[in-house]
């Protein structure tokens, strides 16, 4: 699949945003969040900036962004529509909760905890919907599997917790629980990612050139001539292929930068303390961002669509 910049940015940024937002609310409800207005403000602002920028960027690749509102109509069948609806809905409870947290912390605590809970749930559902856009695409073997929704949720948790951690650190707080959470999420996501790649490398789509053409009973099927000598939309969009060597190198970068280095940096920061802690935590975010963008790029680039079977791919 063609790795479109806007879509990569959308899934990584909004994922991190929802992760951070959900954690902020959870921490507050759990009473673990420091009572620091500017910290909270920065937290909510960062979440919303990430979420909104992500959502906006996802409309950039639309042919008709001005009609984007129509995408809210088909929630009964379309995960993309559900995601849109959820994204908008999520602003409500989380926004309410955020306003409450920042400005009216004492108002209706019980009710607001409930609202917060709904918000957290909405964040999770939104991320899940995003994941399901991909996971529901049967023609893409790399996506239509249980790893994908789990991965989206894990990555949201991971990026959100690493962001929260560095926020806390930057404001001079160091919450062990958050550190633990971040490290645990990083490790869990790492395990997930490795498992996902194993899955990818050891399985293939149930569709083959033989099933795509129905000619299997006559022998093995190989493309002789494509319909066009130059690439068409389908090939540009869905026929994207990455060389194995290239992919292996990128996987290393994704693993290193996305998961391993952030763990090390967080731990090293913990050991260093002070300014070192701040620097290491911020660095962890930057490194992680590079790693996750790479991971996301690979998520598309390594995904093969069944349409490739009609254009010479030996498997999908």
């Amino acid at each position, binding site marked *: 699949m063609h790795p479109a910049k806007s879509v990569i940015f959308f899934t990584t940024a909004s994922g991190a945003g929802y992760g951070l937002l959900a954690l902020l609310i959870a921490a507050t409800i759990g009473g673990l969040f420091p009572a620091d207005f500017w910290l909270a403000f920065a937290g909510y602002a960062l979440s919303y900036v990430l979420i909104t920028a992500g959502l906006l960027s996802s409309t950039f690749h639309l042919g008709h962004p001005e009609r984007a509102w129509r995408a809210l109509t088909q929630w009964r069948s379309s995960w993309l529509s559900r995601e849109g609806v959820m994204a908008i809905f999520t602003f409500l409870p989380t926004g309410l909760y955020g306003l409450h947290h920042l400005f009216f912390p004492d108002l209706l605590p019980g009710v607001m905890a409930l609202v917060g809970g709904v918000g957290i749930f909405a964040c999770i559902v939104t991320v899940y919907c995003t994941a399901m856009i991909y996971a529901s695409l049967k023609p893409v073997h790399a996506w239509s599997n249980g790893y994908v929704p789990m991965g989206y949720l894990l990555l949201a948790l991971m990026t959100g917790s690493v962001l929260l951690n560095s926020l806390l650190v930057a404001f001079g707080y160091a919450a062990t629980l958050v550190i633990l959470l971040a490290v645990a999420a990083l490790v869990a996501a790492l395990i997930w990612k490795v498992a996902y790649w194993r899955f990818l490398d050891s399985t293939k789509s149930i569709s083959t050139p033989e099933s795509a053409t129905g000619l299997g009973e006559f022998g093995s099927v190989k493309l*002789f*001539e494509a*319909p*066009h*000598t*130059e690439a*068409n939309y389908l090939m540009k969009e869905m026929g994207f292929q990455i060389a194995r060597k290239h992919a292996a190198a990128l996987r290393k970068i994704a693993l290193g930068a996305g998961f391993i280095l952030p763990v090390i940096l967080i731990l090293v920061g913990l050991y260093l303390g002070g300014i070192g802690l701040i620097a290491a935590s911020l660095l962890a975010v930057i490194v992680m961002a590079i790693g996750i963008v790479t991971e996301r790029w690979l998520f598309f680039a390594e995904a093969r669509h069944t349409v490739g079977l009609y254009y010479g791919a030996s498997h999908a």
Partner: protein
Amino acid sequence: MKDGIAARDPRVDTSPVVSDEVKFTTCYMCACRCGIKVHLKDNKVRYIEGNPDHPVNRGVLCAKGSAGIMQQNSPAKLKKPLLRVGERGEGKFKEIEWDEALELATGWLQEVRGDDPARLAFFTGRDQSQSFTGWWAKQFGTRNFAAHGGFCSVNMAAAGLYSIGGSFWEFGEPDWDLTKYFLMFGVAEDHDSNPIKMGLGKLKTRGDAKFVSVNPVRSGYSSIADEWLGITPGTDGLFVMAIIHELLRAEKIDWEYLKRYTNASWLVVQAEGEAEHGLFARNATGTPLVATPDGKLLPLSDRKADPVLVGSYTLPSGQTAVPAFQLMAERYLSEEYNPDAVAARVGIEAKTIRRIAAEIAEAAFEQEITLDIPWTDWAGRPQQKMIGRPVSMHAMRGISAHSNGFHTCRAIHLLQMLIGSIDVPGGFRHKPPYPKPCPPGPLPAGQETAANTPLDGMPLGFPKGPEDLLVDEAGNPKRIDKAYSWEYPLSAHGLMHSVIHNAWAGEPQEIDVLFMYMANMGWNSSMNVPDTIRYLTDKKPDGSYKIPKFIYSDAYHSETVAFADLVLPDTTYLERWDCISLLDRPISSAHGAADAIRQPILAPGRDVRPFQDVMLDLGVRLSLPGFVTEDGSALYPGGYSDYIVHHERTPDIGPLGGWRGEDGSGQGRGAANEAQLDAYIANGCFWEKKFTPEQSYYKFANKSYLEEAVHMGWLAMPGPVVMEIYSETMQKFRLAAEGHGRRQPPDHLRGRVADFFDPLPLWYAPFADADIDKGPGYPLHAVTQRPMHMYHSWGSQNAWLRQITARNPIFLHADMAREKDIADGDWVWINSPHGRVKAQAKLMRGVNRNTIWTWNAIGKRKGAWNLKEGAPEATKGFLLNHIISELLPPREDGYRYSNSDPVTGQAAWYDLRVNIEKCAAAEFGETEPMYDAQGPADLDAPPDILRYGADLKGEESSLAPVAMKDWIGNRAENAAGATGIAPGHGNQTTERHKKEKE
């Protein structure tokens, strides 16, 4: 469908108004000439579909035809006459007015005509008006005229016309409805583009026939063949002769057919060394003699004669004679043609050859067809039925484009004659005006040319013996292309591929004006592109061009335009009158005679003129007889449409056969009819006269048909057309070479003529093989195929077609590629003895292991066809033509023959031998050789985006939507195979279908 009215779906308009006008005309996206219905909206083409009533295509339309919109919309359309301002080849021009262009051309031509008209070489390419252009040349007085047939498929035409009085090409077709066994040799697309596709569809759907394709490549038609035989190029003759060997040995031949309809029984004089050797024994009146079982010799005309096909007889002269059949049988029964002996060379296992022979025999004789159609033979003998041998064959350029193609094609015809399958039910069927006598009609004219004098006949014809050659006293060629010379005696279509070289070399003559029309001779239709470019641009020491003046007419910005001094821009096929005439290359089918017109349905909107109008205008300016009245004014002031209606070649016979006579009731014959074109237009721009069942088969000996043919002017006399298994004409040339007769070849050509003028089909290795066998190693054969969706060079300016093929790889067998470490996408050098060209490899399996191939005419010169910089056609696409030589390697004395068949002069494109090697990594990326870009010829830059049709969407109509209906491809055939399917012809109107049933 019973119900099925589309409910109104507010989201889609199911009943838009499609067009404001529908006009019929004839497609010219290729030479097949299908009938089309053009939907027009706001004077733009909205949609083109096949004309369901048209005899050629019955409603279907191929990819090219469907892309007509984009041909009309091409940014490469020339806009105005052009006068060269730069050097030849640069493509720098200035636009001039038509008057200036025509004055200039008239001046050049006038001078030539006043001196020696033969100093004009007038050659046309995609000939659809050859009877007109040939007549123009005749009236001008030059013998140096031909069309593209010489480099195309004259081997097929000549071999057919000298053997069976008709030919493959598009002049005959398998009996698609009845054939049980269809052998196709070397056809990728053919001129009969849609008819062949329709026929194959029918035949395969019927399911009771076997289709065998003999072709080094398994693509296109070969992919749907029941059996594909991946033959080694150039060896089909051997393959066919081995089949003949098998059939003869098993006596699976049609004795009666051979006796009645061929010259198998004619006695051939056997008198080695004498002047009559190998000629037919004749009585005093010249009638051939045959022998009867009791040993009597009777003239063929004796109705009582029941001739025998074997034996040895003594003639009154004392000479011995044997029936032609026996000579034939002796030759092919020889062990030389045993399948075991030929298998390795042919690349087909002996047991397969034997099996194919057995299958042919089984289909011909065990599946014999009998139609209860009484008919009368030419001699008035009533026949009760029509016997059919349901084996049909078709062959084209895979046979034709080899230097042994004439004989190979003749061998195929011999095979057909042996099993009695020509023009019989289930066999190969002639299309009118064929069959004609073997050889047909006129001799080539132009023995003499004189200032300001027309020729005494049409420049192209069919020599019947050495006397008819166009050679001087010393035996040297008279024509610029050396056609009808001892080198290529039966070159019935000329040798267009030799013209530019010979004009440059001044051999056999110099010319002043080269005038070409509709042939991309500066590129894909020349063998040897690099040298052709050199010939066109080479200068004499005084700085003038060796080929002094070059006038060219094209409709588009082709490569050849860049070399012309004066460019006469033509219209597109939707903008002019054209005439598809029975005098020329008609569109008849085996079911009847047909001709057609093209009518202008769009205004050009540019300053271009139909070429035929221009030729008429030039004729008037030059005061050519037949073009002007006595007072010097135009005889056809209305232009070409005027000519089409009023011109008569012989009294009452003109370009069009339909609606003749003042009242329009004449068919084939009749006075000019002022309303003729209207009648054509009203009938969808074509005319068809169907045969009665009685006239439909055995046309060569069928009284009813023969009389009709005389009436229509196709035959001079209603006598039979005797097919020739043995060619006396060929023997006459051989005798001359052996020292007999008044006209003999010069000594240096005696051996060549004697060798190749064998009265019986012969196989010899293609010439290129002979040299390669001596030389360093060109183990591979290289051939091209036509893509079904591209017509030679024109497709690449077509925004839709070029999206299908914008570059061409070189296809190789995967095993062979692996040996050479070549992978898909690698760049390779293809080396021939003549040069090298770089291409990108594509591996496949369905190809003869020693053959590589590519799609023809995709490669383009940079800047041509108004394509933009970087167009893959110019950077990745390539032509094999760069490495084909138009000349054979020098003979011992240095003389070089054309790379052509020695009988017909047919260009031997597919003789090409090559080797390949992988390029160094640094050489990957672009094809070579690469020429500088040619100039844009004042055309506007092509658009970056095309939104054609955005403004042609229809308004909703007030009519209620209608029920849709089932539509089954090949309905009738499917109905026979699967129960419950409504019979019918998917591709025809119900009206027509009803009529046919009646």
